[in-house]
Protein backbone atom coordinates (compact mmCIF):
# COMPACT_ATOMS: atom_id res chain seq x y z
CA UNK A 1 0.00 0.00 0.00
CA UNK A 2 2.81 2.39 0.84
CA UNK A 3 4.35 1.81 -2.56
CA UNK A 4 1.08 2.66 -4.27
CA UNK A 5 0.74 5.78 -2.16
CA UNK A 6 4.14 6.94 -3.38
CA UNK A 7 3.47 6.05 -7.01
CA UNK A 8 0.03 7.64 -7.14
CA UNK A 9 0.45 10.41 -4.57
CA UNK A 10 1.23 13.24 -6.98
CA UNK A 11 -1.51 12.25 -9.36
CA UNK A 12 -3.96 11.95 -6.50
CA UNK A 13 -3.11 15.52 -5.51
CA UNK A 14 -4.00 16.63 -9.01
CA UNK A 15 -7.27 14.70 -8.86
CA UNK A 16 -8.22 16.17 -5.51
CA UNK A 17 -7.30 19.65 -6.72
CA UNK A 18 -9.33 19.26 -9.88
CA UNK A 19 -12.48 18.01 -8.21
CA UNK A 20 -12.37 20.64 -5.49
CA UNK A 21 -11.99 23.31 -8.19
CA UNK A 22 -14.89 21.85 -10.12
CA UNK A 23 -16.95 21.86 -6.96
CA UNK A 24 -16.09 25.51 -6.27
CA UNK A 25 -16.91 26.60 -9.82
CA UNK A 26 -20.21 24.73 -9.75
CA UNK A 27 -21.31 25.84 -6.31
CA UNK A 28 -20.45 29.52 -6.71
CA UNK A 29 -20.68 30.36 -10.43
CA UNK A 30 -19.58 33.84 -11.39
CA UNK A 31 -18.50 34.95 -7.94
CA UNK A 32 -15.19 36.64 -7.24
CA UNK A 33 -14.75 34.66 -4.05
CA UNK A 34 -14.52 31.51 -6.13
CA UNK A 35 -11.31 32.73 -7.71
CA UNK A 36 -9.67 33.39 -4.35
CA UNK A 37 -10.75 30.03 -3.07
CA UNK A 38 -9.28 28.42 -6.19
CA UNK A 39 -5.95 30.13 -5.53
CA UNK A 40 -5.87 28.97 -1.93
CA UNK A 41 -6.64 25.39 -2.88
CA UNK A 42 -4.01 25.60 -5.58
CA UNK A 43 -1.35 26.74 -3.15
CA UNK A 44 -2.21 23.79 -0.92
CA UNK A 45 -1.94 21.40 -3.86
CA UNK A 46 1.39 22.88 -4.91
CA UNK A 47 2.66 22.45 -1.37
CA UNK A 48 1.53 18.83 -1.32
CA UNK A 49 3.20 18.12 -4.65
CA UNK A 50 6.34 19.89 -3.47
CA UNK A 51 6.38 17.74 -0.37
CA UNK A 52 6.12 14.52 -2.37
CA UNK A 53 8.79 15.75 -4.73
CA UNK A 54 11.13 16.63 -1.90
CA UNK A 55 10.61 13.28 -0.15
CA UNK A 56 11.03 11.20 -3.30
CA UNK A 57 14.12 12.96 -4.66
CA UNK A 58 16.10 11.77 -1.70
CA UNK A 59 14.53 8.32 -1.79
CA UNK A 60 15.51 7.88 -5.42
CA UNK A 61 19.02 7.05 -4.30
CA UNK A 62 17.95 4.14 -2.07
CA UNK A 63 20.01 1.00 -2.16
CA UNK A 64 17.07 -1.21 -3.01
CA UNK A 65 16.57 -0.90 -6.77
CA UNK A 66 12.82 -1.33 -6.75
CA UNK A 67 12.33 1.16 -3.94
CA UNK A 68 14.43 3.70 -5.79
CA UNK A 69 12.46 3.02 -8.96
CA UNK A 70 9.16 3.49 -7.19
CA UNK A 71 10.36 6.68 -5.55
CA UNK A 72 11.51 8.09 -8.86
CA UNK A 73 8.17 7.21 -10.44
CA UNK A 74 6.39 8.96 -7.59
CA UNK A 75 8.63 11.99 -7.99
CA UNK A 76 7.96 12.20 -11.71
CA UNK A 77 4.25 11.90 -11.00
CA UNK A 78 4.42 14.75 -8.51
CA UNK A 79 6.31 16.90 -11.00
CA UNK A 80 3.74 16.28 -13.69
CA UNK A 81 1.01 16.91 -11.18
CA UNK A 82 2.65 20.23 -10.34
CA UNK A 83 2.43 21.35 -13.96
CA UNK A 84 -1.16 20.18 -14.26
CA UNK A 85 -2.14 21.89 -11.01
CA UNK A 86 -0.65 25.19 -12.15
CA UNK A 87 -2.46 24.91 -15.49
CA UNK A 88 -5.61 23.99 -13.63
CA UNK A 89 -5.44 27.24 -11.71
CA UNK A 90 -4.81 29.33 -14.82
CA UNK A 91 -8.52 29.89 -15.55
CA UNK A 92 -8.94 31.60 -12.20
CA UNK A 93 -6.29 34.15 -13.20
CA UNK A 94 -6.69 34.44 -16.97
CA UNK A 95 -10.48 34.38 -17.27
Amino acid sequence: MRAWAIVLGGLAVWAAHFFVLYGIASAMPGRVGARWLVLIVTLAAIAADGLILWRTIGAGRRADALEAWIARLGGLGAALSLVAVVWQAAPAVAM
Partner: protein
Amino acid sequence: MLEGWPPPILDPAGPYAWPVTVLSWVLLAMAAAVLLVVFAALWLALFGGERARQRVGGTRIVWLGGIVFPLVVLTALLVYGLTLTASLSERIRGDEMRVRITGEMWWWRVAYLDGDGQPVIHDANELHIPVGEPVVLELESADVIHSFWVPRLSGKLDMIPGRRNLMRIQADEPGQFGGQCAEYCGGPHALMGFVVIAHEREAFERLMAARRAREAGPPPAGDPRGAELFASAGCAACHRIAGTDANGLAGPDLTHIGSRKTLGAGILPNNRGTLMGWIGNSQAIKPNNRMPPYTMLSAAELRAITAYLEEQR
Protein backbone atom coordinates in the same frame (compact mmCIF):
# COMPACT_ATOMS: atom_id res chain seq x y z
CA MET B 1 -28.62 27.58 -45.14
CA LEU B 2 -24.90 27.29 -44.93
CA GLU B 3 -22.91 28.20 -47.96
CA GLY B 4 -19.91 25.92 -47.89
CA TRP B 5 -16.99 27.58 -49.63
CA PRO B 6 -15.12 29.48 -48.28
CA PRO B 7 -15.52 27.60 -44.99
CA PRO B 8 -17.75 29.90 -42.93
CA ILE B 9 -15.52 29.43 -39.89
CA LEU B 10 -12.69 31.04 -41.85
CA ASP B 11 -14.92 33.74 -43.34
CA PRO B 12 -16.14 35.67 -40.29
CA ALA B 13 -18.62 38.51 -40.51
CA GLY B 14 -18.69 39.89 -36.98
CA PRO B 15 -16.73 40.53 -33.80
CA TYR B 16 -17.84 37.28 -32.15
CA ALA B 17 -16.57 35.23 -35.05
CA TRP B 18 -13.35 36.77 -36.29
CA PRO B 19 -11.24 36.24 -33.15
CA VAL B 20 -12.08 32.56 -33.52
CA THR B 21 -10.96 32.66 -37.12
CA VAL B 22 -7.63 34.10 -36.00
CA LEU B 23 -7.44 31.36 -33.40
CA SER B 24 -8.25 28.76 -36.04
CA TRP B 25 -5.38 29.89 -38.22
CA VAL B 26 -3.00 29.95 -35.25
CA LEU B 27 -4.07 26.44 -34.31
CA LEU B 28 -3.75 25.15 -37.84
CA ALA B 29 -0.26 26.63 -38.04
CA MET B 30 0.64 25.16 -34.65
CA ALA B 31 -0.63 21.74 -35.68
CA ALA B 32 1.29 21.87 -38.93
CA ALA B 33 4.50 22.91 -37.15
CA VAL B 34 4.26 20.24 -34.45
CA LEU B 35 3.42 17.63 -37.05
CA LEU B 36 6.51 18.65 -38.95
CA VAL B 37 8.68 18.27 -35.84
CA VAL B 38 7.26 14.82 -35.03
CA PHE B 39 7.55 13.62 -38.60
CA ALA B 40 11.10 14.91 -38.83
CA ALA B 41 12.02 13.01 -35.67
CA LEU B 42 10.31 9.89 -36.97
CA TRP B 43 12.04 10.23 -40.32
CA LEU B 44 15.44 10.57 -38.68
CA ALA B 45 14.69 7.61 -36.41
CA LEU B 46 13.84 5.39 -39.34
CA PHE B 47 16.02 6.61 -42.18
CA GLY B 48 18.60 8.91 -40.60
CA GLY B 49 22.31 8.32 -40.52
CA GLU B 50 24.03 6.75 -37.54
CA ARG B 51 24.66 10.10 -35.83
CA ALA B 52 21.19 11.45 -36.39
CA ARG B 53 19.69 8.26 -35.03
CA GLN B 54 21.91 8.44 -31.99
CA ARG B 55 20.58 11.92 -31.30
CA VAL B 56 16.98 10.86 -31.67
CA GLY B 57 17.44 7.67 -29.69
CA GLY B 58 17.64 8.09 -25.94
CA THR B 59 15.66 9.41 -23.03
CA ARG B 60 16.70 12.99 -23.78
CA ILE B 61 14.44 13.18 -26.82
CA VAL B 62 11.54 11.87 -24.74
CA TRP B 63 12.09 14.68 -22.28
CA LEU B 64 12.57 17.33 -24.94
CA GLY B 65 9.93 16.22 -27.42
CA GLY B 66 7.45 14.68 -25.07
CA ILE B 67 7.60 17.07 -22.14
CA VAL B 68 9.50 20.34 -22.59
CA PHE B 69 8.33 21.20 -26.10
CA PRO B 70 4.61 20.47 -25.46
CA LEU B 71 4.87 22.27 -22.12
CA VAL B 72 5.92 25.48 -23.82
CA VAL B 73 3.47 25.24 -26.71
CA LEU B 74 0.53 24.18 -24.59
CA THR B 75 1.10 26.80 -21.90
CA ALA B 76 1.04 29.51 -24.53
CA LEU B 77 -2.07 28.07 -26.13
CA LEU B 78 -3.82 27.63 -22.81
CA VAL B 79 -3.36 31.27 -21.84
CA TYR B 80 -4.43 32.43 -25.31
CA GLY B 81 -7.48 30.15 -25.27
CA LEU B 82 -8.57 31.12 -21.79
CA THR B 83 -8.29 34.86 -22.31
CA LEU B 84 -10.12 34.57 -25.63
CA THR B 85 -12.86 32.50 -24.02
CA ALA B 86 -13.19 35.09 -21.29
CA SER B 87 -13.32 38.03 -23.69
CA LEU B 88 -15.90 36.33 -25.91
CA SER B 89 -18.12 35.56 -22.95
CA GLU B 90 -17.82 38.88 -21.17
CA ARG B 91 -20.88 40.19 -19.43
CA ILE B 92 -23.94 41.17 -21.42
CA ARG B 93 -24.71 44.89 -20.98
CA GLY B 94 -28.46 44.47 -20.88
CA ASP B 95 -29.49 47.22 -23.29
CA GLU B 96 -28.97 45.14 -26.44
CA MET B 97 -31.80 44.16 -28.70
CA ARG B 98 -33.12 40.79 -27.56
CA VAL B 99 -34.65 37.96 -29.50
CA ARG B 100 -35.86 34.68 -28.08
CA ILE B 101 -35.18 31.71 -30.28
CA THR B 102 -36.73 28.43 -29.32
CA GLY B 103 -35.58 25.19 -30.89
CA GLU B 104 -38.42 22.90 -31.85
CA MET B 105 -38.43 19.60 -33.72
CA TRP B 106 -37.32 20.62 -36.48
CA TRP B 107 -37.62 24.40 -36.82
CA TRP B 108 -36.93 27.56 -34.84
CA ARG B 109 -39.46 29.81 -33.15
CA VAL B 110 -38.36 33.44 -33.20
CA ALA B 111 -39.76 36.16 -30.96
CA TYR B 112 -38.43 39.75 -30.96
CA LEU B 113 -38.65 41.07 -27.41
CA ASP B 114 -39.37 44.57 -26.17
CA GLY B 115 -37.59 46.27 -23.28
CA ASP B 116 -39.58 44.24 -20.77
CA GLY B 117 -38.76 40.93 -22.37
CA GLN B 118 -42.25 40.60 -23.87
CA PRO B 119 -42.50 39.23 -27.41
CA VAL B 120 -43.71 41.85 -29.88
CA ILE B 121 -42.97 40.29 -33.25
CA HIS B 122 -43.39 36.59 -33.98
CA ASP B 123 -41.62 34.80 -36.74
CA ALA B 124 -39.84 31.55 -37.49
CA ASN B 125 -36.64 30.25 -39.00
CA GLU B 126 -35.15 33.63 -39.80
CA LEU B 127 -33.77 36.52 -37.85
CA HIS B 128 -33.36 40.14 -38.92
CA ILE B 129 -30.68 42.15 -37.20
CA PRO B 130 -29.20 45.60 -37.62
CA VAL B 131 -25.62 45.86 -38.84
CA GLY B 132 -22.90 46.77 -36.35
CA GLU B 133 -24.80 46.15 -33.14
CA PRO B 134 -24.69 43.20 -30.83
CA VAL B 135 -27.94 41.30 -30.55
CA VAL B 136 -28.61 39.03 -27.60
CA LEU B 137 -30.35 35.76 -28.33
CA GLU B 138 -32.20 33.90 -25.61
CA LEU B 139 -31.84 30.30 -26.64
CA GLU B 140 -34.45 27.87 -25.36
CA SER B 141 -35.86 24.54 -26.31
CA ALA B 142 -39.43 23.37 -26.49
CA ASP B 143 -38.71 19.65 -26.73
CA VAL B 144 -35.28 18.08 -27.12
CA ILE B 145 -31.77 19.52 -27.20
CA HIS B 146 -30.91 21.59 -30.25
CA SER B 147 -27.89 23.73 -30.93
CA PHE B 148 -27.94 27.14 -32.55
CA TRP B 149 -25.10 27.80 -34.94
CA VAL B 150 -24.53 30.61 -37.42
CA PRO B 151 -20.82 30.09 -38.03
CA ARG B 152 -20.07 33.38 -39.76
CA LEU B 153 -21.41 35.27 -36.74
CA SER B 154 -20.53 33.11 -33.73
CA GLY B 155 -19.78 29.67 -32.41
CA LYS B 156 -22.65 27.41 -31.45
CA LEU B 157 -24.62 27.22 -28.24
CA ASP B 158 -27.04 24.51 -27.17
CA MET B 159 -30.74 24.92 -26.53
CA ILE B 160 -31.58 22.80 -23.53
CA PRO B 161 -35.02 22.12 -22.08
CA GLY B 162 -35.42 23.83 -18.73
CA ARG B 163 -32.55 26.24 -19.35
CA ARG B 164 -32.01 29.54 -21.11
CA ASN B 165 -28.64 30.16 -22.72
CA LEU B 166 -27.63 33.63 -23.84
CA MET B 167 -25.67 34.20 -27.01
CA ARG B 168 -24.46 37.34 -28.67
CA ILE B 169 -24.18 37.82 -32.38
CA GLN B 170 -23.23 40.80 -34.46
CA ALA B 171 -22.84 41.29 -38.18
CA ASP B 172 -20.56 44.02 -39.44
CA GLU B 173 -21.90 44.01 -42.97
CA PRO B 174 -25.35 43.57 -44.47
CA GLY B 175 -26.06 40.17 -45.88
CA GLN B 176 -27.52 36.75 -45.31
CA PHE B 177 -25.83 34.30 -42.98
CA GLY B 178 -26.79 30.64 -42.94
CA GLY B 179 -27.17 28.58 -39.82
CA GLN B 180 -27.95 25.02 -38.91
CA CYS B 181 -28.94 22.92 -35.93
CA ALA B 182 -25.79 21.25 -34.69
CA GLU B 183 -27.06 18.93 -31.96
CA TYR B 184 -28.65 15.72 -33.12
CA CYS B 185 -32.36 16.13 -32.45
CA GLY B 186 -33.76 13.03 -34.11
CA GLY B 187 -35.57 12.52 -37.43
CA PRO B 188 -34.82 15.23 -40.00
CA HIS B 189 -32.18 16.93 -37.85
CA ALA B 190 -30.15 17.20 -41.06
CA LEU B 191 -32.74 19.56 -42.53
CA MET B 192 -33.03 22.13 -39.76
CA GLY B 193 -31.55 25.31 -41.12
CA PHE B 194 -31.78 28.97 -40.24
CA VAL B 195 -31.05 32.36 -41.80
CA VAL B 196 -29.83 35.57 -40.25
CA ILE B 197 -30.34 38.67 -42.37
CA ALA B 198 -28.41 41.78 -41.45
CA HIS B 199 -29.75 45.15 -42.62
CA GLU B 200 -28.40 48.65 -42.49
CA ARG B 201 -29.83 50.44 -39.48
CA GLU B 202 -32.50 52.43 -41.32
CA ALA B 203 -33.76 49.54 -43.40
CA PHE B 204 -33.89 47.48 -40.25
CA GLU B 205 -35.91 50.12 -38.40
CA ARG B 206 -38.35 50.33 -41.29
CA LEU B 207 -38.78 46.58 -41.36
CA MET B 208 -39.36 46.34 -37.64
CA ALA B 209 -41.79 49.24 -37.65
CA ALA B 210 -43.77 47.62 -40.44
CA ARG B 211 -43.85 44.31 -38.63
CA ARG B 212 -44.87 45.85 -35.34
CA ALA B 213 -47.68 47.66 -37.12
CA ARG B 214 -48.72 44.46 -38.82
CA GLU B 215 -48.80 42.49 -35.58
CA ALA B 216 -50.90 45.16 -33.90
CA GLY B 217 -53.19 45.89 -36.82
CA PRO B 218 -55.59 43.97 -39.06
CA PRO B 219 -54.38 41.32 -41.49
CA PRO B 220 -54.03 42.15 -45.18
CA ALA B 221 -57.22 41.47 -47.11
CA GLY B 222 -55.74 38.66 -49.14
CA ASP B 223 -57.72 35.97 -50.90
CA PRO B 224 -60.94 35.57 -48.84
CA ARG B 225 -61.42 32.00 -50.01
CA GLY B 226 -57.84 31.22 -48.94
CA ALA B 227 -58.47 32.75 -45.52
CA GLU B 228 -61.57 30.67 -45.10
CA LEU B 229 -59.80 27.50 -46.20
CA PHE B 230 -56.85 28.25 -43.93
CA ALA B 231 -59.28 28.03 -41.05
CA SER B 232 -61.41 25.15 -42.30
CA ALA B 233 -58.61 22.89 -43.52
CA GLY B 234 -57.13 22.87 -40.05
CA CYS B 235 -54.06 25.03 -40.72
CA ALA B 236 -55.13 27.41 -37.98
CA ALA B 237 -54.89 24.67 -35.39
CA CYS B 238 -51.12 24.73 -35.60
CA HIS B 239 -50.28 28.08 -37.15
CA ARG B 240 -50.90 31.63 -36.06
CA ILE B 241 -51.53 34.65 -38.20
CA ALA B 242 -51.76 37.84 -36.17
CA GLY B 243 -55.11 39.59 -36.26
CA THR B 244 -57.03 36.52 -37.42
CA ASP B 245 -58.63 33.63 -35.63
CA ALA B 246 -55.67 31.46 -36.55
CA ASN B 247 -53.74 31.21 -33.32
CA GLY B 248 -52.21 27.73 -33.30
CA LEU B 249 -48.87 27.53 -31.55
CA ALA B 250 -47.63 24.09 -32.54
CA GLY B 251 -46.13 25.18 -35.84
CA PRO B 252 -44.28 28.23 -37.11
CA ASP B 253 -46.00 31.60 -36.91
CA LEU B 254 -47.16 32.55 -40.42
CA THR B 255 -47.86 36.25 -39.88
CA HIS B 256 -44.89 37.19 -42.05
CA ILE B 257 -44.63 34.05 -44.16
CA GLY B 258 -44.95 35.92 -47.44
CA SER B 259 -41.77 37.89 -46.86
CA ARG B 260 -39.62 35.06 -45.52
CA LYS B 261 -36.52 34.11 -47.40
CA THR B 262 -36.84 30.40 -46.79
CA LEU B 263 -39.31 27.62 -46.16
CA GLY B 264 -39.11 24.34 -44.28
CA ALA B 265 -36.65 25.77 -41.72
CA GLY B 266 -34.04 27.30 -43.95
CA ILE B 267 -33.94 24.53 -46.52
CA LEU B 268 -35.92 25.91 -49.45
CA PRO B 269 -36.11 29.33 -51.08
CA ASN B 270 -39.54 30.81 -50.47
CA ASN B 271 -41.50 31.23 -53.69
CA ARG B 272 -44.90 30.31 -55.00
CA GLY B 273 -43.81 26.89 -56.17
CA THR B 274 -42.10 25.81 -52.97
CA LEU B 275 -44.81 27.28 -50.79
CA MET B 276 -47.44 25.31 -52.61
CA GLY B 277 -45.35 22.18 -52.78
CA TRP B 278 -44.62 22.43 -49.07
CA ILE B 279 -48.31 22.76 -48.19
CA GLY B 280 -49.24 19.97 -50.59
CA ASN B 281 -46.79 17.40 -49.32
CA SER B 282 -43.92 18.60 -47.16
CA GLN B 283 -43.20 14.98 -46.23
CA ALA B 284 -41.73 14.39 -49.66
CA ILE B 285 -39.30 17.24 -49.11
CA LYS B 286 -38.48 16.91 -45.41
CA PRO B 287 -39.52 13.43 -44.30
CA ASN B 288 -40.95 13.05 -40.80
CA ASN B 289 -41.40 16.75 -40.18
CA ARG B 290 -44.44 17.47 -38.05
CA MET B 291 -46.65 18.91 -40.81
CA PRO B 292 -48.97 16.35 -42.37
CA PRO B 293 -49.31 16.18 -46.16
CA TYR B 294 -52.38 17.98 -47.53
CA THR B 295 -52.92 15.87 -50.59
CA MET B 296 -56.66 15.81 -49.89
CA LEU B 297 -57.01 19.49 -50.70
CA SER B 298 -58.41 20.09 -54.14
CA ALA B 299 -56.33 21.91 -56.68
CA ALA B 300 -58.21 25.12 -56.40
CA GLU B 301 -58.13 24.97 -52.62
CA LEU B 302 -54.40 24.50 -52.57
CA ARG B 303 -53.97 27.46 -54.89
CA ALA B 304 -56.22 29.62 -52.78
CA ILE B 305 -54.35 28.86 -49.57
CA THR B 306 -51.04 29.51 -51.28
CA ALA B 307 -52.27 32.81 -52.64
CA TYR B 308 -53.53 33.78 -49.18
CA LEU B 309 -50.24 32.98 -47.52
CA GLU B 310 -48.25 34.84 -50.14
CA GLU B 311 -50.10 37.96 -49.01
CA GLN B 312 -49.04 37.57 -45.38
CA ARG B 313 -45.97 39.73 -45.22
